[in-house]
C-alpha cells in the first residue's frame, strides 16, 4: 500500500498549478472565493480558457478532444481547479450529453455536436425531471409523436438548471405508452429557439434563479436529433446517470470550502475567543475535517479500483451521499460562524464589484444563502434517499 502520489502525478499537479496561476483570471477566482454569483459570461470565459489549453474535455476519448489522463490525473486536476477557486465547469453538455453521444450517438451527431460543445457554440441544459417524475424519473409524460421527418413534442420539464441561458436541451420524451414505463422513452436533442418552447425561471428560497420550468407546445424536432434508437432512451439515461464520475464526491470543492472555513474559525470570535477555540465549534470543525480526510481516501480507493478496471457503480452512491453531506455541513458551519450576521440579506453584496459597506464579517454575506441553496445537493442528481436504495440493492443485496 502506498497513498503517495507518484512523481509523475506530482509533476502533473505542478503543471496544473502553473496553468491556474497563469490563466485563471483573479476577477473570477475572487468572485468564487467570496461566494458571489457568477454570470453566464463568467462561466463561458473559464470554459474558453480551459478549451484553449485542451483540458476542457479531459474525460473524453482522445480522438474527440480528450487528454488521455488517468483517473488519478483527473482527480488531481479537479482538486486543483477547485482549490484555486475556479468557476464551476457547466457539466450539461461536456460531462452529461457528450458521453452519451460518444457511446450511443451517430457519427454525424458526434461530428456536429461535440466540437460545438468544446467551443461553446451550444450551451446545453438537461430535460429529465418533470413535475410528476422526480425520484421516479421513468414516470415521465412529455410526449414526442413522429410526424414525417419530425417529432412533435408536448409536455413540461422542470428543475432545468441554467436553462435560462441554454441554446439546446437534451430531453427524455415518451414515444410509446405501451408496456413498462421504462420502455417507450427516447432521447431527443432540441433547439431551445424552436417555436413552442417557453422557459420560466423558478425563484428559489435564496432569492436566486438557477433552475427553470421548460414548457413544450407542439415543438417540432427533426428526426435526426434522435440519439440512438427510438424507445431505448432509458438505457442512455441510466448510462448518463451512472456514468463514472470521478468527482461526484466533490472532494476538491469541499477541501477549498473547508480551508476557507478554517480561516474563518481562526479569526471570527465568540465569547472572547476565536471560534476555533470554542469547545462546541472546535469539535464540529474537527469532526468535519476528519470526515473529509476519510472521504478523500474513500474517493481515492474507488478511483484506484476504477483505474484497475473495476467499474464503480454503487460505490459512487456512497461518495455522492457523504460528499454532499460534507459540503452541506461546511455551509452549515459557515452560517453558524456568521452568528447574528447570518440574517442580513444584502443581495448586492453577492454581485461582483459590490462597494457598499460590509455588514458584519465579509464571509457572512452569502453564508445563509449558501446553506439554504446547498439543500439541493442531497436532493438533485438522484436524491440521497435514492442513493441509499441503490446501495441497499446493488451492494448490500437486500
Amino acid at each position, binding site marked *: 500500500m502506498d497513498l503517495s502520489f507518484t512523481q509523475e502525478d506530482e509533476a502533473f499537479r505542478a503543471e496544473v498549478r502553473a496553468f491556474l496561476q497563469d490563466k485563471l483570471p483573479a476577477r473570477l477566482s475572487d468572485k468564487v472565493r467570496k461566494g458571489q454569483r457568477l454570470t453566464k459570461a463568467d462561466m463561458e470565459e473559464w470554459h474558453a480558457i480551459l478549451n484553449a489549453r485542451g483540458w476542457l474535455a479531459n474525460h473524453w476519448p482522445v480522438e474527440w478532444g480528450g487528454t488521455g489522463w488517468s483517473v488519478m490525473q483527473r482527480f488531481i486536476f479537479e482538486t486543483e481547479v477547485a482549490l484555486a477557486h475556479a468557476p464551476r465547469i457547466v457539466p450539461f453538455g461536456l460531462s452529461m450529453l457528450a458521453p452519451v453521444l460518444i457511446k450511443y450517438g451517430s457519427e454525424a451527431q458526434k461530428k456536429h455536436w461535440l466540437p460545438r460543445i468544446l467551443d461553446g457554440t451550444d450551451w446545453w441544459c438537461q430535460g429529465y425531471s418533470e413535475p410528476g417524475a422526480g425520484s421516479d424519473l421513468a414516470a415521465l409524460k412529455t410526449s414526442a409523436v413522429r410526424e414525417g421527418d419530425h417529432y412533435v413534442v408536448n409536455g413540461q420539464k422542470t428543475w432545468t438548471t441554467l436553462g435560462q441561458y441554454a441554446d439546446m436541451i437534451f430531453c427524455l420524451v415518451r414515444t410509446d405508452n405501451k408496456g413498462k414505463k421504462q420502455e417507450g422513452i427516447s432521447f431527443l436533442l432540441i433547439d431551445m429557439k424552436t417555436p413552442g418552447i417557453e422557459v420560466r425561471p423558478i425563484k*428559489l428560497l435564496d432569492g436566486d434563479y438557477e433552475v427553470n420550468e421548460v414548457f413544450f407546445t407542439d415543438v417540432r424536432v427533426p428526426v435526426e436529433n434522435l440519439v440512438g434508437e427510438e424507445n431505448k432512451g432509458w438505457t442512455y439515461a441510466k448510462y448518463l446517470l451512472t456514468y463514472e464520475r470521478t468527482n461526484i464526491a466533490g472532494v476538491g470543492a469541499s477541501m477549498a470550502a473547508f480551508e476557507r472555513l478554517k480561516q474563518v474559525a481562526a479569526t471570527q470570535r465568540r465569547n472572547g475567543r476565536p471560534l476555533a477555540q470554542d469547545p*462546541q465549534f472546535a469539535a464540529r470543525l474537527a469532526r468535519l475535517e476528519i470526515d473529509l480526510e476519510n472521504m478523500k481516501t474513500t474517493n481515492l480507493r474507488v478511483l484506484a479500483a476504477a483505474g484497475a478496471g473495476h467499474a464503480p457503480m454503487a460505490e459512487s452512491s456512497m461518495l455522492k451521499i457523504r460528499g454532499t453531506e460534507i459540503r452541506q455541513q461546511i455551509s452549515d458551519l459557515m452560517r*453558524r460562524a456568521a452568528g447574528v450576521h447570518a*440574517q442580513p440579506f444584502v443581495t448586492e453584496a453577492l454581485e461582483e464589484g459590490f462597494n457598499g459597506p460590509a455588514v458584519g464579517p465579509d464571509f457572512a454575506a452569502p453564508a445563509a444563502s449558501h446553506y*439554504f441553496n446547498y439543500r439541493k445537493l442531497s436532493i438533485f442528481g438522484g436524491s440521497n434517499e435514492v442513493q441509499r436504495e441503490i446501495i441497499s440493492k446493488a451492494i448490500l443485496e437486500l
Partner: protein
Amino acid sequence: MDFSLGEDRQMLVDTLGRFLAGNFDWKTRETVIETAEGWSRPVWAQLAELGVIGALFDEASGGFGGSAFDIGVVFAEVGKALAVGPFLGTLLAGRALAATGETALLEQAIAGEVTLSAALDSDAAQGVADGEGWALTGTQPVVPFAASADRIVVAARTGEGPSLFLIEKGAPGIEIRDYPLIDGGAAGELMLDGAAATLLGQAGEAGAIIEEAVAAGLVALCWEAVAIMDSLKVQTLEYLRTRKQFGVAIGKFQALQHRMATLALEIEQARSSAINAADRFAKGRLEREKAVSAAKFTIGRVGSLAAEEAIQMHGGIGMTWELPLSHYAKRLVMIGHQLGDEDMHLERFIALGQDALATAS
C-alpha cells in the same frame, strides 16, 4: 399541574390567530416583506388595538398580561402566521423600560403610538457622561427594525458597568445601515458616534435587567419556533400523503415514515423545553437561566433538523420561494441565530450547572 392555557389566554390566542389569518395572510406577507420598512404599520396598529402588545407586559407596566406564558402564546401565533413586525424589539425594549420604571413610554408603545427596538449587547458600545445626558459610541449589530424605531433601548458599558440607555430616532451621532433579512423583516447595524442618550435606571446596574429581558426574548423565540415546527410538520405530512412517486404516496415509504416519527418526537421534546422555559421564568435566576438556555439549545438542534427534513422530504419543490414551506424553514433556522445559538446556550447551560455546584458546595 395544569397544562391548559386558561380561559383568558385561550381567548387571546383565538383572537390573535383569527386576526392574523384574516389580516396577515400569505399574500399580505409577501407584499409586506418586499417593502422598504419590512413590516406593516396598519397591521401593527390593529394588533395594538386588540391588546396583543399589552399582553406582553404586566398591569403595573400598563399591560394586561406579561407572564412568560402570555409572551409564549403571542409569539406562537406570530410563528404560526410567520408574521413580521417589531415584536421582539418591542418585547426586549419594553421589559427593560418596565424594569427601569419608564412606563409612560412603554404605554405609548403598547398603544401602538411609538415603535421600539432594543440593542442589548453591552460590550458593543461605551457610554460616557456628557453634561446632563450621556454619549454612546460603538456598533450594535443586527438591531431588529432599527430604521423604523422611534426609540431604541441600547446597552453600553460605562465606568460603572453595564448600563441601559434610550436613544431617539434621528438624534445626532446615530447612523443606521439598514437591510432586509433572509427570513423576512428588516434590521440594521446601529452605529453610534457620541450619540445623545438618556440613562435608564442606575448606571452599572443593568446586568440583571438585560439578562431578564433577554430571557423573556428567549421564551418568545422558543414558542415562535415550536409553532413553526408544527407548521412544517403539518405541511410535510400533507405533502407525504398526496405526493405520489412509483405509484404510491411517498408517505407510504417506511424510511420516510420512521424519519417523520423521529421528527414528531423531537418536536414534542422541543415543545416541552419551551414550556419548561416559560414555567421556570418566574423562578429564581439560576433555574430561569438554565431553563431558557436548555430550551434555546433544544430549539436550535431540533429547529435545523425540522427545517432540513421538511425541505428534503419535499424535494425540489421545498426549495422554491413560491412554497410557504421554504420561508418557514428559513425563519426557523434563523431563530437559531438570534439571542445566542445552540452551541452558545449549551456552553452556557454547562457553565450555569458548574455555578450551581460551586454555590452548593
